[in-house]
């Protein structure tokens, strides 16, 4: 069975799921920040990034198929930046140095991009959408922010299914077989599909208004008290983040 993107939420089975949702979100955020701060093209910085990504993947333990899928996506997104190397001007330095400079910039982008993709995936896998809501509610964020973030995730899944239904209808009505009919349907799709999305957005806005969704504080049903394991995990994540800051600040290679 195919896995859709929203099935990714909460699909991990690693030890991190035993922590409360807000801790999982904070750990994911700290891991992401570590990978963005540590210098990607030095030995120490690269090691910190590699260990952080590996540790977060091991703690979250999403399905291997998903990990490989996202790794492939990251490669597809960021490896093509290497193709830009021949286009980079030497910029007054020797050609070899110019190439090296360009390669370092591209490698930097590749390492950061790949680590960002993998950590985001593992973070999403470690929280279900309900956990996301719980976690955001418990964090010191304005209620409206968590309400809107959760609604974006929730409604995106709804739209995904709606798009699938439209695609099925197109297939049944002969629009996927190519030819003139397919072009005719494809041509009219934006004029049919977009107003549907706008209509749906209107109706959801009505329901949110009527149910008082964005009024007052976002409240939570579940108890999510942080325990010793949560504090220990956060301390470790902050220590690694601090290490990344120090390595960058002092220019450790």
């Amino acid at each position: 069975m195919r896995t859709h993107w929203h099935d990714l939420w909460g699909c991990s089975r690693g030890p991190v799921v035993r922590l409360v949702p807000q801790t999982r979100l904070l750990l994911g955020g700290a891991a992401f920040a570590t990978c963005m701060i540590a210098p990607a093209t030095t030995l120490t910085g690269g090691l910190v990034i590699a260990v952080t990504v590996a540790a977060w993947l091991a703690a979250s333990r999403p399905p291997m198929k998903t990990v490989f899928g996202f790794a492939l996506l990251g490669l597809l997104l960021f490896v093509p930046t290497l193709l830009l190397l021949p286009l980079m001007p030497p910029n007054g330095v020797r050609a070899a140095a110019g190439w090296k400079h360009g390669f370092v910039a591209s490698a930097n982008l590749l390492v950061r991009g790949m680590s960002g993709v993998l950590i985001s995936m593992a973070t999403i896998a470690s929280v279900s959408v309900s956990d996301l809501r719980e976690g955001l509610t418990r964090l010191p964020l304005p209620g409206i922010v968590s309400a809107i973030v959760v609604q974006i995730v929730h409604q995106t899944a709804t739209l995904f299914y709606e798009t699938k239904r439209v695609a099925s209808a197109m297939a049944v009505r002969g629009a996927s077989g190519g030819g003139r009919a397919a072009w005719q349907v494809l041509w009219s799709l934006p004029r049919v599909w977009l107003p549907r999305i706008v209509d749906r957005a209107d109706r959801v806005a009505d329901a949110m208004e009527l149910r008082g969704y964005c009024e007052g504080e976002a409240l939570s049903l579940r108890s999510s008290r942080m325990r010793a394991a949560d504090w220990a995990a956060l301390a470790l994540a902050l220590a690694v983040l601090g290490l990344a800051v120090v390595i960058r600040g002092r220019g450790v290679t």
Partner: protein
Amino acid sequence: MSEPALAFRNVSVCYESSAARTLSDVSFSVAAGERVALLGLNGSGKTTLLKSAVGLVPHEGEIRVGDTVLARQTLPKIRERIGFLFNVPEDQILFPRVADDVAFALVRQGRPRDEISARATEVLHSLGIGHLAESPVHHLSHGQKQRVALAGALVAVPKLLLLDEPSAGLDPPGKNVLAHLLAGLDAAMLIATHDLAFATRLCTRFIMLERGRVAFDGTDTAEVLRDWE
């Protein structure tokens, strides 16, 4: 005599995008505990009428819910008293987990956590979907979503229920459960529906809308059926 649960007096609604009035000079009332079916062909104004009762569309004339006149200042108070079911259940399900969505009205009221869980579970069981409490809503069928949305409308025991096509998408056993459940409630109800069998089983009075006007308001089902056909 007690206040009607809902009263429309010369209510008209005109959308900005349309020159014609969607509702025109509509007057009726629903007594406390009364169950009224709102009938009419597609585009006759049933959904607009329900939406106008909760201030989702601007109106002219007077709408009263209990002793309160609908106005900008009274909207929150009025909406708290009403259980509303939209005609597309997906639109009003705002939480990814069934139990969270159903419990939302009680959470907003600041009720104790244990009470909220117990009440949400009770409503879900009464609608035959107790086993779905922990399910993600995206994995539910249309009929199941319809029941989740209904549970969310019923959970706070509102005095007035405005239901837009509540039986749409339900299988025959589901319709039976729903009719039985609604018949056992004390709330006044205004039920917009095309399902005459469901309406005649549940309601004691019928209002027929035709092009935004009340064409019939009475209790005689024979007359309703004649007009309908």
